[in-house]
């Protein structure tokens, strides 16, 4: 409790009575209008309560007389954006992916829209930019299991791979662990490694070549370069989905892994699939 108001000798202003190292704080009163701005801001808040959603209740909230609703605003703006895109979507619907790829305006729209759709639906497995990861193939390189043309990509996205859809791409590499002897599998592995330019046991590779022609060439081709119609990978390039090391190749021959991809036509509309097709084609490997 201050006992007595003390005046500062120099300025004649009252002090607050607080003192730090001999320096006393002056008690300069705030101007009245400053107080009024405070009242005005209280009034502003009251007006706001009336106009806009504000007070929570038990079963709802005060909605405000202006009927402002940010969720509806969002819906409204999304609808506006959709309407603005509608002209593009109409053109996309009637255009083939090849036509889209030739039309600079549609191509630009597809690259941007396709990226959004890709990041939402595809990047979970194929990674951003189609970089691929783990057992999910890279889409940005020039090596394709099922073909890298616009039509082939669209087909793969539409119906997927080994997912039970009747139009899905399907193949099934037999488990050679049940067909060939372990030693034979080692020989074939040596041959497959030699296809990729890795020198191994030349003698074993020679034995493996005969086994390869007998067991593998029907799908992977006599030269081991694969067959995209069958989804049979090229074994002569340095791109290996399940690994390029000897144990990984052996494992794949003994009991192959069979990757699955969903049929996106059951989830996405045709226009979005076209966007995705053009986008994936643009990632670098499109043929």
């Amino acid at each position, binding site marked *: 409790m*201050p*006992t*007595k*108001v003390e005046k500062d000798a120099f300025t004649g202003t*009252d002090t607050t009575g607080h003192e730090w190292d001999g320096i006393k704080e002056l*008690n*300069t*009163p*705030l*101007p*009245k*209008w*400053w*107080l009024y701005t405070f009242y005005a801001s209280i009034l502003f808040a009251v007006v706001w309560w009336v106009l806009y959603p504000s007070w929570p209740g038990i079963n709802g909230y005060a909605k405000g007389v202006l009927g402002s609703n940010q969720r509806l605003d969002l819906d409204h703006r999304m609808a506006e954006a959709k309407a603005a895109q509608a002209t593009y979507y109409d053109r996309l619907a009637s255009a083939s992916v090849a036509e889209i*790829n030739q039309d*600079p305006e549609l*191509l630009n729209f597809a*690259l941007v829209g396709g990226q959004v759709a890709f990041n939402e639906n595809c990047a979970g497995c194929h*990674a*951003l*930019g*189609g*970089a*691929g990861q783990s057992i999910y193939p*890279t889409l*940005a*390189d*020039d*090596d394709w299991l099922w073909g890298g043309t616009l039509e082939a990509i669209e087909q793969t996205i539409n119906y997927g791979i080994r997912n039970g859809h009747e139009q899905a791409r399907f193949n099934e590499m037999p488990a050679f662990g049940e067909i060939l002897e372990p030693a034979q599998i080692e020989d074939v592995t040596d041959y497959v490694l030699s296809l990729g330019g890795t020198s191994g046991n030349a003698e074993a590779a020679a034995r493996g070549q005969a086994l390869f022609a007998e067991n593998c060439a029907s799908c992977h081709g006599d030269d081991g370069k694969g067959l995209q119609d069958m989804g049979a990978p*090229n074994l002569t*390039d*340095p*791109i290996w989905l399940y690994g390029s090391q000897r144990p990984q190749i052996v494992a794949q021959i003994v009991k192959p892994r069979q990757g699955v991809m969903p049929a996106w036509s059951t989830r996405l509309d045709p226009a979005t699939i076209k966007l995705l097709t053009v986008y994936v084609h*643009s*990632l*670098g*490997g499109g043929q």
Partner: protein
Amino acid sequence: MNDLAPAATPAPVPVEDAVSFKQQKDTKLYAERVRIYAKAIKGRFRQIKTAALVGLLAIYYLVPWLRWDRGPGAPDQAVLIDMPSRRAYFFWIEIWPQEIYYLTFLLMLGAFGLFLVTSIGGRVWCGFTCPQTVWTDLFMWVERLIEGDRAARIRLDKSPLTGGKVARKVAKHGAWLLIAAATGGAWIMYFNDAPTVTWNILTGQASFAVYFFCGLFTATTYLLAGWAREQVCTYMCPWPRFQAALLDNESYVVTYESWRGEPRGAHKKGASWDGRGDCVACNQCVAVCPTGIDIRDGLQLECIGCGLCIDACNDVMAKVGRPANLITLDTEANQQRRQRGEAPVMRIVRPRTIIYAVIIAVLGIGILLGLSTRATLDVNVLHDRNPLFVRLSDGGLRNGYTLKILNKDRVAKTFALGIEDLAGATLSVIGHEPAPGQPILLEGRPDTVTSYRLYVTAPAAAVASHQQPIQLSLTDQADQTVARFETVFRGPER
């Protein structure tokens, strides 16, 4: 008896440091506004202030109407900040948003200019050129025109409410609001085409944003120049608070020569001046002060350095026949010299002013150099973050880039894309398939950014480490000038 006998030395009565609460109510929590009725005055400083007012308002109101031909499709307003299309125009200069650093430098130039001027001449900015001062001055002029000078205004405010008083008040506030609306309207014109937006405002076709900002600046002008006035300087503005850091004893500030003014007192005509000061305690200096202070109390926070008190005092000194400039624009050091009977010395060149001037010169030259050598072509090459590189089936490597061509010219340009510093590299751009042996030709659309997807493919052997700096080149097909832009080509860790 003994028990009741007083002690030999009575204990002192304890004195409490207590005061009745009524006496403690000395301090008010809030200060009442003291109305200031500044009196009109003629003189040298008034002339400077009027010249500044007319000149600055003319610049403010007329500049948006200046035209500058930039060719078809471009705005022809000399000074325009075009928010929707993200461009700022200043006569021959066009600024893109990413060149906002010019504004930073301009603000720095303004700040150091203010420091320099203040360290030389005190608060010249506050007294003559600050918008708050200029518009307050204009509003006071209107007020005097309608309600009369100081004495008439005091009388009017004290008089009972009559038809005449209401008419004067309505006329004054009406005139203020008109000026405020013109001020708000002119502000909008710096952001919109002036003739178009003026027509649209008048015919009710302007956008909500235009009317909103017009109304906002009308309201702030009316409130700040009509009502708040000196309250802005004393309570809102930070500048008075740190002016002390910019002044030294060689800075020219509005000064009362107390050594020859005191002791002050009323003076009868013909009476002797011996044993007294020159100040006749007429308080004219207080009456003309737009912030309502007494300069004879010394340099203070509220003084905006406008010098009107000097004009007022010089009038009085001439009348009583004493030397002019009892209130004067002088330095603290000169005041001491004068007191000692020495001649005053003008010391504008001091370490402080030299440093400020050098900074201003460096900044100014920097801005001029930047603007005069500003490239009309810029390219942003953004290396893909994912994937950093792709291994191809022939063992080669490929990197993806987003190539953005910023063509700051108003004509479309065609560039041939090339690459340097990467052996065996090939380029491909999505949507562009040149004939074999022909370079990739990219269009840079006029006055905008054109984006391309670029792939660079190179044999693995071409990349020495996991990251190699490379250069992309764009050759303008019109004049064969080559612009080069650096980026990197990435490969696996080695």
